[in-house]
């Protein structure tokens, strides 16, 4: 699918998007998505995180019209989706791939048959189907599984087939609905690498719905955090990780990055490690670890790293270190002051 978008114009543009499920028997009205604004640039990987019930699954289904929005504007590749009929949405969906937590492969078809299905809808010739399917099976690393039925594949292989099937029609946008949530950590990592490869080699824009921050860290360029149907925080992954503003964001970031020990952990640490505890925030472009340790070494302060560590996020350094400093009170005072001048520091 080609788009008439200029580089400045986002591939996906949401304005004031709301999705309300009307009240029904024994059920109150549900506001699944509330007044969402979001721009997703072409070629970007946008993660949308939130706990279950936050509205992210609904939001992603608004992007290909599987669910109609109640109000607002949803533009994909310059086309307004809100108000379109099912018949008008169908050709648009050919340009939007989708993968699922439960893979949703056709069990009655072979891997080949699964990949052929969207091509048949698109009315592609047999010869072209053949070429495209074998190309994609090689791309996802399953060239020998063409005639296997899905039930004989592992979870990771199923999702590879799901990804290949979603890519057959060369979509400019790929929607991933909890694509790795049913997979073990090792397989998750492999599938995320494959998605990264899809993004880099084909320039496919990816919108990834997830509750796993691991997915955000490994895959995403931008992240939006949803709570109660609203996007409460969004931005480049590194920015959101390094300065989470909302409590929900801090909880999510805390699942992949140690911030500071909670009170119980802190008490346990104090029992084992003498000295004063200082948490230091290391960020890309800031002082190096050697600068920090030099300050301590010069004053003859004994120190230990008791909590936290250094992470790599989208190729940038990111770390929260909690150090136990042991030495003469005056020297430690001085060292803490000096450290605070170098990096954000907080005595615990």
């Amino acid at each position, binding site marked *: 699918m080609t788009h008439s978008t200029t580089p400045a114009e986002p591939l996906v543009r949401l304005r004031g998007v709301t999705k309300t499920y009307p009240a029904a028997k024994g059920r109150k009205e549900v506001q699944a998505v509330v007044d969402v604004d979001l721009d997703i640039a072409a070629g970007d990987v946008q993660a949308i995180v939130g706990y279950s019930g936050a509205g992210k699954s609904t939001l992603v289904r608004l992007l290909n019209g599987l669910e109609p929005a109640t109000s607002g504007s949803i533009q994909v590749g310059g086309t307004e989706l809100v108000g379109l009929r099912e018949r008008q949405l169908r050709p648009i969906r*050919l340009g939007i791939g989708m993968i699922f937590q439960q893979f*949703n492969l056709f*069990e009655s078809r072979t891997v080949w048959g699964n990949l052929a299905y969207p091509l048949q*809808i698109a009315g592609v010739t047999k010869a072209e189907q053949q070429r495209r399917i074998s190309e994609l099976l090689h791309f996802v690393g399953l060239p020998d599984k063409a005639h296997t039925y899905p*039930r004989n594949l592992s979870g990771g292989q199923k999702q590879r087939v799901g990804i290949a099937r979603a890519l057959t029609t060369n979509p400019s946008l790929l929607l991933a609905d909890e694509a790795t949530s049913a997979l073990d950590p090792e397989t998750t990592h492999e599938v995320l690498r494959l998605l990264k490869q899809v993004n880099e080699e084909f320039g496919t824009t990816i919108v990834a719905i997830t509750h796993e921050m691991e997915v955000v860290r490994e895959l995403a360029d931008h992240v939006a955090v949803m709570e109660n149907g609203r996007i409460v925080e969004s931005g480049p992954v590194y920015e959101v990780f390094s300065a989470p503003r909302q409590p929900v964001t801090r909880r999510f970031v805390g699942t992949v990055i140690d911030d500071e020990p909670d009170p119980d952990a802190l008490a346990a640490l104090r029992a084992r490690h003498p000295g004063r505890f200082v948490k230091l925030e290391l960020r890309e472009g800031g002082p190096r670890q050697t600068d920090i340790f030099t300050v301590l070494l010069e004053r003859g302060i004994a120190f230990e790293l008791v909590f936290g560590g250094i992470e790599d996020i989208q190729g940038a350094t990111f770390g929260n270190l909690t150090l136990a400093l042991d030495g003469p009170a005056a020297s430690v005072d001085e060292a803490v002051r000096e450290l605070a001048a170098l990096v954000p520091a907080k005595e615990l």
Partner: protein
Amino acid sequence: MLTALPTDTRLGELWPDIWQATGETLLMVALTMLIGGTLGLILGLGLYLTRKGGLYENAVVSFVLNVLVNFFRPIPFIIFIAAVQPAARLIVGTGIGTPAVVFSLVLAAMFGIARIVEQNLVTVPPGVIEAARAMGATRARIAATVVVPEAMAPVILGYTFAFVAVVDMSAVAGLIAGGGLGSFAQTFGYRQYDPAVTWVCVLILVALVQVIQLLGNTLSARILRR
């Protein structure tokens, strides 16, 4: 003097009639499964597609179809066959004989099979249907190329079940002068105090049911194994 039971049976001279009755049963059941099975598939698809959350969700159509099926399905066949006799006269031109029996069987099988089909189609995971929608498939294409193929293995087992039920129902044919093994067993076995004839008919029916069940199981398992 006591007469030995076997010498009293007319089984020997009845064999040609037994084979003819077997042929009649096979014909009635085959016609019923062909016509009633097709109509039941259509009606079952209708029930499935119009139900809440279905591809063609339609509360009114769904309600009407459900009332229709629920009305006809619980009627015992022995009463059903008499109740629909006027309709048989209207549609197949006669209220008695094998055509009228087949007419009644088709109707009864259709409503039973419709429910069986519906119950098996609802086992297709909604996510698979959603995946096809996300690919831009039309609803009709999804029904024909996703829903039915995905539910094929249990649907075949359902049809096997229906087949056995139709064999059972066809035994009542004698009530309106239809043929087949059931009425033959009643006429020449039960009423003539000739248990040998009855039991031969029973054994042929059992063999028939066994073959059908085996075929159904094999076919279904072959589909499931993939």
